[in-house]
C-alpha cells in the first residue's frame, strides 16, 4: 500500500492525471490490439493442450466391433432399395423406412411438423436399461449440402439392425429420419421435449450421419460440432469421436478443412482452424430456409451432446469402418454412468487433437470488450469533443448539468428503444411473410438496408449547417456518446461467457465506433469511414457475399505460408479471372448471399432460439445509430468553455 500511496503522490505532484486522461483513447485501442494478439498467441506451442478423455467411464474403442463384411451386405441391400425409391413421394419413402424398422423390432412413430414435413423415428427400449436415458442416431433424407443422404440412410439402417442384436445397451436407442437436418429435425427435437407422447427418456447424445455418395467407400470424416448461441457438445464426446476415428484409420477434418491440410499441425494451420471455428460459432444458426443445417443446431439448447459425421471422398476405407466408428461412439456413451460433465463445455479446437480451454481464450474477448469500457470512460471525461483537443483536462469539466444529462439519457434511451422495436418488428415481419414466395421483397429489404446505412454514413461529409455555441449541446452529446459506448461494453461483457465468439467478433467489428469524435461539422468528416466500417449491415453484406463465393481461409493461408508467384497466379486465375463476373445468374446468386443470412438472422430466434439478431439489433445497432446522430450534430464549443459562453 505504501508503494501505491507513493505512486499516487507522484501522480498528483507532477500533474499526471490530466495527461493520463488524454491518453485513454490510446489505451482503448491498445486493449483491442492486445485482444487480437491474444488470439494470435493461442496457436503457439505451449499455449494449447492436447485433448484427453477425462471421463473414465467412457472407455472409447475398448471392444472389438463385429460391424464388418456380413453387415456390409445388409447396408448394400438397404442402399439399393433407397436408391430405387429415392425419388418417391415423401410419405412412401418414410413408410418404407418405417416398415423396415418394424421388421427389425423398433417401435416406430411419425411426427409431422406444422409445415407438413415428416420425421419418422423409432425407439428401441433396451431390455437391460431402466428406460430413462437414450442415445440418438439421426440420418436426414437431405444432407446439409442439399444432396440425398443415400449412404447415410443405408448405413444407419444397417447399424440399427446390428444394434438391435447386441445385448450390451443400457440406454435406449432412438433412430430419427427427418426430411432435413435443420427445421424439420429441430421441430421434432422441440416436440420430443414438450409434446410427443412416445419418447425414450432424456437424450444423452445424438449423432448425425451424412454420407451422400452411393459409393462403398469413403476417404476421411468431417466432424461438425458447433451449436447455436455458442453452445458446444462436451469435449469428451468430440475427443471420443476423434480418437475412435483415428483408431479406425480415418483422418478427421474440422470446419471444412480440405484433405491436403489434414496432416498439417503447424502454427498457420492451427490458427486457420481456430479462426474458422470462431467464425462458424458466431454464425451458427443463421440458416437459409433450406440447406446448410447439419443437425447440431437442431439439438442445441436441450442439453443433448450432438456431433455430425460427414463422410468425405469416395475411396479409401469401406463404409462399415464409419459404421464401426459410430458403434464405438455409442458404446462409449452407453458406458456413461452420469451425464457428460467431466470435460469442457467451452473450448476452441486447433486441430482435432489440440484445444484451448475457456480460461486461456476468454481474456481475448475481455480485452476487446474492456476497450469499450475505457472508451466510454474517455467519452465521459471529454476526450471525444475535438474542441477540447489542445486544452488540458481538469476535473471541473466532468460535471454535467441536470438538463443536458436528462436530455442525453433520453436521446440514448429513445434510440435504443427504437432500435429494439425495429429489430422486433423485422422478426415479426419474417414470421408472417414467407421467404419462398417473397424472395424479391427480402432481397429489396436486405440490400435496401445495406445501401441505406452506407448512404447515411456519409452524412457527416454532406451536412453543412452551423449551430449556436452552446454548452448544453456539447454536454448532451457527451452523455449520449458515453452512455451508448458503455451500453455496448455492458452488452458485450454479458455476452462473453455465453457466446465468446459472437462477443469477440462484434467487439472487433464495432471497434471503429470508439474512434468517433464530435465537434464542428467540418471536423467530423473522418467519422464517415468509421461509421461505414462498423455498420452491422456492411458486415452482413461481406459475410453473405463471402459465403456465396465459397471463400476458404485455407487458400489464403496456403498463399501466405507457401508464397510463390505461380500459386498466386493460379488462385487469381481460378477465383477472379475465370469467374464470369458479369453473368447475371452468377451476380444474382452472389447478391442472394446476404439476403439468405439476413433471413437466417431474422428467423433465427423463432427457428433455433438463436440470439444473434437480438444481440445485433438490441446492442450493436442502437450504438451505431447513436454514433451517427452524434456525428451529425454541430458541436461548437468544448467542455471547458461553458463558463465563458453562458
Amino acid at each position, binding site marked *: 500500500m505504501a508503494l501505491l500511496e507513493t505512486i499516487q503522490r507522484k501522480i498528483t505532484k507532477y500533474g499526471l492525471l490530466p495527461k493520463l486522461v488524454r491518453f485513454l483513447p490510446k489505451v482503448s485501442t491498445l486493449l483491442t490490439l492486445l485482444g487480437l494478439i491474444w488470439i494470435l498467441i493461442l496457436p503457439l506451442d505451449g499455449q494449447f493442450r492436447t485433448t484427453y478423455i477425462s471421463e473414465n467411464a467412457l472407455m472409447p474403442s475398448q471392444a472389438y466391433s463385429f460391424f464388418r463384411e456380413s453387415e456390409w451386405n445388409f447396408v448394400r441391400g438397404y442402399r439399393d432399395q433407397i436408391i430405387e425409391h429415392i425419388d418417391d413421394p415423401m410419405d412412401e419413402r418414410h413408410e418404407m423406412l418405417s416398415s423396415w424398422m418394424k421388421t427389425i423390432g423398433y417401435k416406430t412413430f411419425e411426427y409431422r411438423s406444422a409445415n407438413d414435413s415428416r420425421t419418422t423415428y423409432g425407439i428401441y427400449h433396451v431390455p437391460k436399461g431402466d428406460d430413462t436415458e437414450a442415445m440418438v442416431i439421426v440420418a436426414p433424407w437431405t444432407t446439409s449440402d442439399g444432396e440425398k443422404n443415400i449412404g447415410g440412410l443405408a448405413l444407419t439402417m444397417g447399424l440399427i439392425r446390428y444394434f438391435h442384436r447386441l445385448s450390451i445397451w443400457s440406454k435406449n436407442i432412438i433412430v430419427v429420419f427427418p426430411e432435413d437436418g435443420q427445421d424439420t429435425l429441430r421441430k421434432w427435437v422441440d416436440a420430443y421435449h414438450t409434446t410427443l407422447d412416445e419418447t425414450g427418456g432424456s437424450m444423452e447424445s445424438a449423432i448425425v450421419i451424412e454420407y451422400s455418395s452411393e459409393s462403398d467407400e469413403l476417404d476421411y470424416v468431417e466432424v461438425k460440432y458447433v451449436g447455436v448461441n455458442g453452445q458446444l457438445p462436451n469435449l469428451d464426446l468430440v475427443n471420443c469421436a476423434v480418437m475412435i476415428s483415428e483408431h479406425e484409420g480415418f483422418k478427421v477434418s474440422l470446419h471444412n478443412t480440405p484433405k491436403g491440410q489434414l496432416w498439417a499441425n503447424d502454427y498457420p494451420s492451427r490458427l486457420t482452424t481456430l479462426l474458422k471455428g470462431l467464425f462458424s460459432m458466431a454464425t451458427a444458426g443463421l440458416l437459409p430456409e433450406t440447406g446448410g443445417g447439419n443437425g447440431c443446431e437442431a439439438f442445441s439448447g436441450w*442439453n443433448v451432446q450432438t456431433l455430425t459425421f460427414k463422410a468425405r471422398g469416395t475411396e479409401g476405407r469401406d463404409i462399415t469402418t464409419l459404421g464401426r466408428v459410430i458403434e464405438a461412439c455409442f458404446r462409449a456413451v452407453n458406458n456413461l454412468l452420469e451425464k457428460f460433465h467431466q470435460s469442457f*463445455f467451452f473450448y476452441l479446437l486447433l486441430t482435432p487433437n489440440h484445444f484451448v480451454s475457456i480460461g486461456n481464450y476468454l481474456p481475448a474477448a475481455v480485452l476487446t470488450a474492456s476497450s469499450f469500457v475505457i472508451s466510454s470512460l474517455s467519452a465521459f471525461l471529454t476526450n471525444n469533443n475535438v474542441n477540447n483537443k489542445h486544452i488540458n483536462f481538469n476535473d471541473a469539466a466532468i460535471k454535467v448539468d441536470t438538463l443536458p444529462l436528462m436530455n442525453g439519457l433520453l436521446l440514448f434511451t429513445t434510440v435504443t428503444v427504437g432500435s429494439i422495436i425495429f429489430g422486433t418488428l423485422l422478426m415479426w415481419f419474417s414470421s408472417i411473410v414467407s421467404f419462398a414466395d417473397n424472395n424479391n421483397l427480402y432481397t429489396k429489404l436486405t440490400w435496401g438496408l445495406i445501401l441505406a446505412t452506407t448512404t447515411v454514413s456519409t452524412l457527416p461529409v454532406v451536412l453543412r449547417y452551423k449551430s449556436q455555441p452552446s454548452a448544453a449541446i456539447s454536454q448532451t452529446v457527451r452523455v449520449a456518446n458515453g452512455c451508448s459506448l*458503455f451500453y455496448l461494453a455492458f452488452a458485450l461483457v454479458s455476452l462473453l*461467457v455465453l457466446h465468446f465468439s459472437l462477443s469477440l467478433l462484434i467487439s472487433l467489428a464495432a471497434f471503429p465506433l470508439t474512434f468517433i469524435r464530435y465537434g464542428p461539422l467540418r471536423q467530423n468528416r473522418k467519422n464517415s469511414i468509421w461509421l461505414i466500417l462498423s455498420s452491422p449491415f456492411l458486415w452482413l453484406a461481406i459475410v453473405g457475399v463471402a459465403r456465396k463465393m465459397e471463400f476458404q481461409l485455407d487458400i489464403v493461408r496456403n498463399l501466405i505460408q507457401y508464397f510463390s508467384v505461380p500459386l498466386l497466379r493460379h488462385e487469381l486465375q481460378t477465383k477472379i479471372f475465370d469467374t464470369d463476373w458479369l453473368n447475371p445468374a452468377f451476380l444474382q446468386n452472389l447478391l442472394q448471399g446476404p439476403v439468405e443470412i439476413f433471413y437466417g438472422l431474422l428467423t433465427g430466434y423463432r427457428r433455433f432460439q438463436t440470439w444473434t439478431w437480438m444481440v445485433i439489433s438490441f446492442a450493436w445497432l442502437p450504438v451505431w445509430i447513436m454514433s451517427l446522430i452524434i456525428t451529425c450534430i454541430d458541436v461548437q464549443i468544448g467542455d471547458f468553455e461553458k463558463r465563458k459562453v453562458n
Partner: protein
Amino acid sequence: MTMVESEYIILTTGFFIRLAVPALYPQITSILDKSVLFSTPISSFRSLQEGIFLLTSDIDPYNGEVVHFPPLLLVLFSQLTHLNAVFAAFDTLIGFLLVQINKNTKYSTKFSSGVVATFYAFNPLAILSTLSKSTTVINNLTLILFFHFTLQNKFRASIVTLAISTYLTYYNWYFAVPLMFSIYQSTRSQQAVVRSLILYIASISALLYSSYILTNNSLRFLYLNYASIVLFKKIVPNIGLWWYFFTEIFDFFSSFYLSVFNIYSFIFVVPLATRFRNDLLFASWILVGFVNFAKAYPTVTDLNLFYSMLIIFKVYYKKLKFSPFLSYLGVILILTLLPVFYYVWMSLNSGNANFFYAIGLVLSILQTIIVSDFLWSKIQTEYFESKNINIDTIVKLTQI
C-alpha cells in the same frame, strides 16, 4: 407548477407504470418470480399463492414445508384482490415515505423532493421488485415506515411498526437496537427505553398469539417462519453468501457455521448504533445494507431498499471514493451478469455453481465497498464538522 405538486405527479406516474406493465404484460410476474434474483422460497409470490390456495381450500398451510409466511399476512392476502394495484400502491407508498424522510432529515445538503421522487418512481430495481410481487416489498414498506416514524420521534407508532416488521421478517428485530438508542437520545430516560421495550415485546407477542390462535393452536408457523430462516432449512441458490457454504461443507460442520453466520449478521448492530447515535437513520441504513449480504435469503427487492435510501445521504457524497453513480452502475452490471451465469449453470449445463457464486460474491464485495465507503465518508464529514473545517479543504485523513 410548484415543486410540491411535481413530486406527487411523479409518484403517481410511477404508480401507473407499476400498474400498466403487468396489465399489458401479465407474464412478467411469473418470469421475475422464477428468476433467482427476485425469488426465494421464503418470499416468492409462487409460494404465497400456494399458501393462499391451501388456506382457501381448508387445508392447513403450515402442515407442509412450502409456506414460510406469517399467518396474518396469508389471511390478509387471501382477502385481497387486484394484487397488481396493491403492490403498485405499496411501492408508491415506499416512494412517498422516501420523499418524506428526505424532507425531514436535518442534513445540510439534500436533493429536492422532486429528484427523490423521480429517482424512486423510475428506478428499475424498484419497478422490477414491485412486478415480482414478492412479500419483501411489504417488508421494505414496514421498515421505511418505521424509519419515517422514528425520524419524526413518533416512537409509539414506530415501535408498533417495527413489531409488525419483525413479525414479517426475522432479521428486523435488529433495528430495535437503534430504535432504543434514539428513544434514549430524545427522552434521556432509561424508563422510557424499558417501557418501549415492553411495548415492543407486547406487540410482537400479540401478533404471535393471534397467529397461534389462527393456526388452530399450533406453533408450527414459528418453525416455518423464523426457525427455517435461522437454521437455513432450504438450501437453494440465491444472490447471497450462505447457500454455497451449506452445500459444500460436511454436515457435522453445519451447526457451527449456522451459529457463525447468524452471529455475524448481528455482530455490527450494537457497535453501529453506539458509534452513530447522533445519526441513527444513517446507522439503520448501513444496517440494512449490512444485513442484505449477511442474511440467509436476500433478493434484489432487499437491495432495492438500501440503494433507494442512498439518495437521502447526499451530504456524504463529497467524501466518497466511488461516486454513487459508479456504484449504481456496478450494481446494475453485476445484477445483469447474475442471471446470465445462472442460465449458464442451470439451463445450458455448461457452467457450474462456482460461476454463479463467484458473481454473487462480487455483488457482496461491491456492497461491502459501498457500505464501508459511506461509513468512512460519514466519519470524515463528522470530523470536519467537529473541527469547524470547511468540507472542501484538502486534508488527508488516514484510517487506523
